[in-house]
């Protein structure tokens, strides 16, 4: 019916918009913690830097050797050029290890005031009180706080920062470290293995099912700093857990690099849900490697909300190694402003009767780029396996982009596979309809966008999805009304 209507709500990217994005971050995240680091390595990356940090951590020789070997692999690999432009990244000007504190606390009262204030502002202790079984908080390179409720400790659950785990449970760490994601996997994985620090370690004994989630919160603090946390999750047979990861940082004009590794072991009939909500500031380059091994009848669920960062490259993977193993990968990404969101999923069906489901939703606006990059393989012999991939992109204006690069290899004849993709804009008929019921244009657009994301948003914990809602509303308000 919009015969004479001009769709003129596209705008050129202006300084105002960039200011708006900043303003949004300032509301909650854009503040710096004033701490003098207890220790930090010199700028740049060398054997000496790694030996310094390994010494500071007082870690075993075998770990130092893993690091030094990974450094060689890192140096031998080129910076990936198949995705976003990473030319800004200069590995010599980053600081790889910044330890903010001398001790780690198990009680918020023991956390130094400045750092506690930081996590108070982010709402972390509050979330812990309200709905978590345990919580780890990391500032810069190290965990500053970790706690698991006693009832779970008593059942043998272990949840702590990774450095402590290396000290207290070296055998479990050594057995599992670097097997799911070897340093040779990609350049960022090699880098992480060389300079990893912090992250969380979660071990659930056989048959233990946590009915409340545990959460790790990662906070970066400066410019030209690197955060390379290492997370290891082991769910023994029949265990189940929901792990939540939150990430924020203050805004700087210079970039910082975040490159984590997450390794998840889902053993027979175990279930792990990994929810990640990153709201990095728009100077962060984010390239984590996340992967799970899923054994017989096990289930791995990846839920990802990608709100912030300047560049993100994340492709959570599941290797379905046992019969009847299954995985789902739900991903929602906002690519609004001068950002590049390169998100996706990787699934390998390596056993019969395995199943996987990938749903990716993206929104591009204000010159943003959203990419879905997926890899799906069904090996020969993975009889009767089932896989589906659905990726939907919503593009808000004429200066923004979305691309889809699905890479599917179906090598098993009895397997079934479906792939659906859509790219669209907000329909003006929908906006008109909502307006005819008294809803302002900006609100109408927010409702439509949130509806588009609903499949995935409803899987994100309430505290974070509320944030998502607010952010989408704010972004849509910036588009203003057609008038």
């Amino acid at each position: 019916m919009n015969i004479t209507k001009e769709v003129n709500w596209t705008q050129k990217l202006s300084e105002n918009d960039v200011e708006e994005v900043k303003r949004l971050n300032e509301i909650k995240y854009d503040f710096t913690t004033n701490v003098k680091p207890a220790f930090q390595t010199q700028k740049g990356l060398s054997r000496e830097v790694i030996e310094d940090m390994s010494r500071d951590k007082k870690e075993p020789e075998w770990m130092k050797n893993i690091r030094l070997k990974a450094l060689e692999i890192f140096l031998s690999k080129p910076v990936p050029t198949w995705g976003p432009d990473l030319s800004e990244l200069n590995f010599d000007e980053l600081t790889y290890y910044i330890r903010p504190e001398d001790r780690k606390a198990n009680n918020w009262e023991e956390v130094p005031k400045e750092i506690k204030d930081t996590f108070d502002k982010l709402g972390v202790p509050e979330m812990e009180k309200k709905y978590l079984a345990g919580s780890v908080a990391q500032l810069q390179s190290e965990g500053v706080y970790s706690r698991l409720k006693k009832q779970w400790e008593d059942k043998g659950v272990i949840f702590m920062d990774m450095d402590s785990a290396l000290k207290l449970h070296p055998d479990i760490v050594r057995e599992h470290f670097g097997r799911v994601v070897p340093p040779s996997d990609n350049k960022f994985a090699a880098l992480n293995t060389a300079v990893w620090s912090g992250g969380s370690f979660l071990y659930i004994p056989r048959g233990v099912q946590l009915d409340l989630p545990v959460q790790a919160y990662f906070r970066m603090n400066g410019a030209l700093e690197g955060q390379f946390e290492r997370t290891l999750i082991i769910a023994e047979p029949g265990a189940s857990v929901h792990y939540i990861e939150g990430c924020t940082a203050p805004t700087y004009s210079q970039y910082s690099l975040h490159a984590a590794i997450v390794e998840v072991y889902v053993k027979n009939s175990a279930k792990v849900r990994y929810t990640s909500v990153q709201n990095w500031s728009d100077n962060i380059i984010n390239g984590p490697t996340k992967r799970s091994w899923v054994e017989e009848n096990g289930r791995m669920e990846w839920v990802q909300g990608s709100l912030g960062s300047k560049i993100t490259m994340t492709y959570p993977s599941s290797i379905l190694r046992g019969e009847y193993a299954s995985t789902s990968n739900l991903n929602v990404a906002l690519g609004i402003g001068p950002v590049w969101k390169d998100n996706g999923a990787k699934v390998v069906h390596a056993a019969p009767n395995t199943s996987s489901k990938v749903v990716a939703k993206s929104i591009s606006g204000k010159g943003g780029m959203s990419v879905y990059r997926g890899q799906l393989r069904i090996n020969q012999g993975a009889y009767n396996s089932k896989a589906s991939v659905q990726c939907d992109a919503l593009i808000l204006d004429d200066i923004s982009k979305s691309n889809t690069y699905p890479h599917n290899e179906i090598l098993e004849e009895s397997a079934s596979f479906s792939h659906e993709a859509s790219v669209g804009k907000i329909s003006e008929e929908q906006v008109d309809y909502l307006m005819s019921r008294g809803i302002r244009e900006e609100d109408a657009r927010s409702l439509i966008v949130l509806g588009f994301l609903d499949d995935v948003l409803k899987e994100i914990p309430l505290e974070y999805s509320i944030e998502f809602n607010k952010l989408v509303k704010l972004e849509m308000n910036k588009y203003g009304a057609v008038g």
Partner: protein
Amino acid sequence: MVPNVLSIKNLNVSVNDKVILKDVSITVKSGEIHALMGPNGTGKSTLAHTIIGTARYKINNGQLYLNDQNLLDLQVYERARAGLFVAFQEPVSVQGLRFINYLRTAYTSLHPDEKLEYKKFVEEVKELLAFFGLDSTFTDRGLNDGLSGGEKKRMEALQMLILRPKFIILDEIDSGLDIDALRVVSKAIGKAKENGAGIIIITHYQRILDYIKPDFVHVLINGRIAESGSGDLAKTIEERGYEYYKGGELDAKVE
């Protein structure tokens, strides 16, 4: 109580340089039911869209007032807030936008001074769903998502009741409804009238008028009101057909 008045005066509207509505005038007061009848393609839907402002057609001439408020100065959402409601002929669907969330947003937009009790609101909506013979889980479904034509029409009628507008324009609400649905929708229109709304029923057929007796009937032929009269006019039209009005300057395709 002073009745509200919706006044359409000498409205002249064109689409792509073609004049679609010519000199249309209708005045509706609170509690009145007007039927706007006419063959297909004669400008009935154009009138509905022009009144609510969703069509953005070119208005060459004429006035549109709700009491002393000039609607032509207002944006679509402001006209809704002034008290207008259109039940659309082809309601759009919005995937993932849960009906109850949408409806709550609409309600609080239209009645900002009321404190909405959410639980009560949901109960009320569920009762109305039952009244219309619709499944109570429709509250959590995406707006009109996957609904049949008839279900969508009943959902429009439901909104008409819950949002309590001053003036209601029903654009072919009767198309796609079976006899039971038609009966219940007619009942709902009766309720809206009792609540004091002024109503324009746009229809091609006389069928719905067997269930609701209009106070006034207008016949729109080729964009012009060819005849206005009391409720009985509908019967006359049924007897002699729209063919009766053919001729003169009428060049529209008349069924």
